[in-house]
């Protein structure tokens, strides 16, 4: 029986589990929520140790990044990502995973063209467009300040 790719995709969708979208989202919710809960536990610890809000936030991010880097180096974060999907991608740990996994993956291509350059495969666009957006907001904020 011959089928076009569209027909085949349609058939897979019909035969496959109907709730895969719901299941994916539930996993993303659980894994992402758990990472954020861990972040909040760390943040409350740092606050209890006397850090101000800003410092506690910075320390929390850095701790999560280091944890993600360790799990990525051991090959464990990738396993979490199979189940967690966006739940492991969207938190800051996913950003760190993108940097660290590219750094390791491309080290065979050399320290500079491999690790050094490829580290920015995922981090680069995030930093570039995040910075651009902040510059645009800064300009608007400055102009509003002058006008007001």
């Amino acid at each position, binding site marked *: 029986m011959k089928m076009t790719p569209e027909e085949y995709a349609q058939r897979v969708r019909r035969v496959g589990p109907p709730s895969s*979208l719901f299941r994916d989202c539930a996993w993303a919710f659980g894994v992402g929520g758990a990472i954020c809960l861990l972040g909040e536990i760390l943040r409350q610890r740092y606050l209890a140790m006397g850090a101000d809000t800003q410092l506690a936030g910075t320390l929390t991010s850095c701790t999560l990044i280091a944890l993600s880097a360790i799990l990525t180096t051991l090959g464990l974060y990738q396993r979490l990502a199979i189940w967690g999907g966006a739940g492991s991608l969207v938190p800051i740990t996913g950003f760190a995973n993108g940097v660290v996994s590219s750094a390791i993956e491309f080290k065979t291509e050399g320290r500079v063209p491999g690790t050094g350059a490829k580290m920015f*495969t995922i981090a680069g666009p*995030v930093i570039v467009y995040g910075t651009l957006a902040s*510059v645009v907001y800064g300009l608007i904020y400055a102009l509003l300040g002058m006008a007001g």
Partner: protein
Amino acid sequence: MMIYLWAFLVGGALCAVGQLLIDLTSLTPARILTGYVIAGVILSAIGFYGPLVEFAGSGASVPLLGFGHLMAQGVQKAVAEQGLLGCLTGGLTAGAAGITASLVCGAIAALLGKSHDQN
């Protein structure tokens, strides 16, 4: 205790939205992360994200939207202190710790780590 519950629920919800974007559109992970940071800057600029961080703590600040919020707050503070020059310094200054920590971890991991199957 409620802050832990809200951190879980809000963080989970922001991640579930990301999963919907992955499943329903053909956006790649890099595009989703980029979109989240830009959205974070915009949501912070219109005054929505600050209160959400107050409310949900790490549930709002740990997802990459929070990174955008951090950059937006940084640029706002820098412009208030230094005027127009602040546009060029505020965003990356605020994001410096997260970016630097990631890069240092990446460099160390490349020294120590072996390549794993990424699938």
